[in-house]
């Protein structure tokens, strides 16, 4: 498996790079892959001296200032949501869980609506939306976390129910704000945000998600043994030496941090965190040693393509990416459901 795994990962890395190049090429102004890489390489130290700049200033802006950060953000968000989904599915031992099951997206929506409609945090300028969305998800997870703790222990069942309850309440709050809104355009803006979009990508706002993704990815990967044991169940985890309570808390915090940061920059893009781990398990099995890295790669590839489609399908307008992911993901999921030999984690 090990050799096969390395080979497979390398192929996926290659596919990711090709997909990202392609995604930078397409759009209202198309560019050739040669220029894409020339512009990128010209920005790197040492290499730049070998590159002869023979492109226009506007080409450079389109490639370097607009498309490259956006494509990178797509890869980060896709990878992040996929590993968050995989981790949360291990935590709650249920394959229908996704990163939003703990109420994170509904909390972020409250933050976003209060910025878009009520104009909260206006002193933060262009960062107001991200910051308040992140604060909203933080609020949601803190609520869920404390509701699900009984006597210092986290009960998974309570965690799920608390996640649902908090989601309902916070969704009601953002709906209330929406209904009270006077402006016509605001409704669409909120809708657009909720369905997810990567249009806001800039070099400045992909740094935090990149760092958080990197850290969470490494930590989850290092703890693959514990994640496997969580899947086996409480009894196996305890008897094989996992400090269950502590590990669950760490997992909730890690996943929430990652999801919160991603939702803050991209809205709540659905389906990625749910289906990518399924596809990955179908290919490499349930062992998290492989599930984590492959989920990251596949999630990244998937969202890069989804974002490319979102940009070109109704150009010059943009489709919210959440619609694309659901349109591609839904049928695939149904196909998966119809396959007899794929177990959804219900055992036999």
């Amino acid at each position, binding site marked *: 498996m090990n050799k096969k795994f390395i080979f497979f990962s390398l192929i996926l890395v290659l596919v990711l790079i090709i997909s990202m190049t392609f995604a930078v090429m397409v759009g209202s102004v198309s560019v050739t892959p040669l220029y894409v890489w020339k512009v990128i390489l010209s920005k790197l130290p040492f290499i730049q001296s070998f590159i002869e700049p023979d492109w226009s200033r506007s080409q450079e802006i389109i490639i370097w200032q607009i498309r490259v950060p956006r494509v990178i953000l797509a890869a980060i968000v896709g990878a992040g949501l996929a590993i968050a989904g995989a981790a949360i599915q291990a935590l709650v031992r249920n394959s229908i869980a996704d990163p939003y099951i703990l109420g994170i997206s509904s909390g972020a929506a409250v933050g976003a609506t209060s910025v878009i409609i009520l104009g909260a945090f206006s002193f933060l300028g262009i960062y107001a939306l991200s910051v308040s969305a992140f604060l909203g998800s933080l609020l949601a997870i803190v609520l869920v976390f404390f509701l699900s703790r009984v006597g210092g222990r986290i009960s998974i069942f309570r965690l799920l129910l608390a996640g649902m309850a908090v989601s309902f309440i916070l969704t009601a709050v953002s709906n209330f704000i929406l209904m009270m809104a006077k402006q016509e355009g605001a409704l669409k803006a909120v809708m657009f945000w909720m369905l997810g979009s990567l249009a806001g990508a800039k070099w400045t706002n992909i740094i935090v998600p990149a760092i958080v993704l990197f850290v969470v990815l490494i930590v989850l990967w290092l703890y693959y043994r*514990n994640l496997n044991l969580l899947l086996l169940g409480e009894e196996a985890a305890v008897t094989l*030496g996992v400090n269950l309570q502590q590990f669950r808390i760490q997992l909730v915090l890690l996943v929430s941090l990652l999801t919160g940061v991603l939702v803050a920059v991209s809205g709540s893009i659905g389906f990625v965190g749910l289906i990518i781990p399924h596809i990955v398990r179908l290919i490499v099995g349930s062992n998290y040693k492989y599930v984590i890295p492959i989920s990251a790669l596949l999630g990244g590839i998937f969202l890069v393509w989804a974002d490319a489609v979102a940009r070109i399908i109704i150009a010059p307008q943009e489709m919210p990416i959440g619609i694309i992911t659901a349109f591609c993901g839904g049928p695939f999921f149904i196909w998966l459901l119809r396959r007899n030999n794929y177990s959804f984690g219900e055992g036999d």
Partner: protein
Amino acid sequence: MTLEAKQVSFSINDQRILHEVSIHIKEKQFVGLIGPNGSGKSTLLKNMYRLLKPENGIILLNEQDILKQSSKAIAKNLAVVSQETPVLFDFTVHDLVSMGRTPHKKLLELDQEQDFRIVKDALRQTGICHLEKRSFSSLSGGEKKRVMVARALAQQAQVLILDEPTNHLDIQHQLQLMDLIQTLHLTVVAALHDLNIAAMYCDQIYVLQHGRIVCYGAPEEVLTPALLQKVFGVYADIQTHALTGKPYLTYVPEQFTKNIRDRAGAVNVR
């Protein structure tokens, strides 16, 4: 290494399941736990492997309170084959048995040559080498049980807790498994339903009823017609087996005991 439960009490929703139960398993001793359904055998074992926390009393592993040690430290010394094997997600047999190595691995440590050898040995000892690449969910109940035993062996612990290890196994594998465990010379405590197996393999037997230890000692002391009548409500004919030298029980259905009772006017059947 020794394992001991001292005055352990446990309740679920105000229902007392265990009343100040004390049992002591000496170094390399094989101790059996018998008792009817609902007598508290599994609950006692779960308290002993930290899945449940005793309301009162303590569990000592090698004279140390288990609640004062890290989960990992305990898992290095104490392996468990529990009754349930609910694996929801699909793993291969090899992956599952390898998980037995978890408590011995550091965070950044990959599986070494030694780990692969230990896993191979565990697969061989439980006779499931041929299943190594199979997916766990495709196995039969008995095969799954042996995978769980193999995982516990891969843990290389000195103390073994078994909750009805022979459940689901055919008679050949029941005996093979018990023989294997006996030859490992570990400190073992096992909840057993088959009293003949208990009689054959245990050094000591504890009898649980309604969450209390009613009797303990060597098999020949404990397994008497009177006790079986009292605790299990069955008549049994008990002989010393000519080959094994161990007590051998034959349960006698009521229709036969009735005749005997009528004739002899005695409660106990000898």
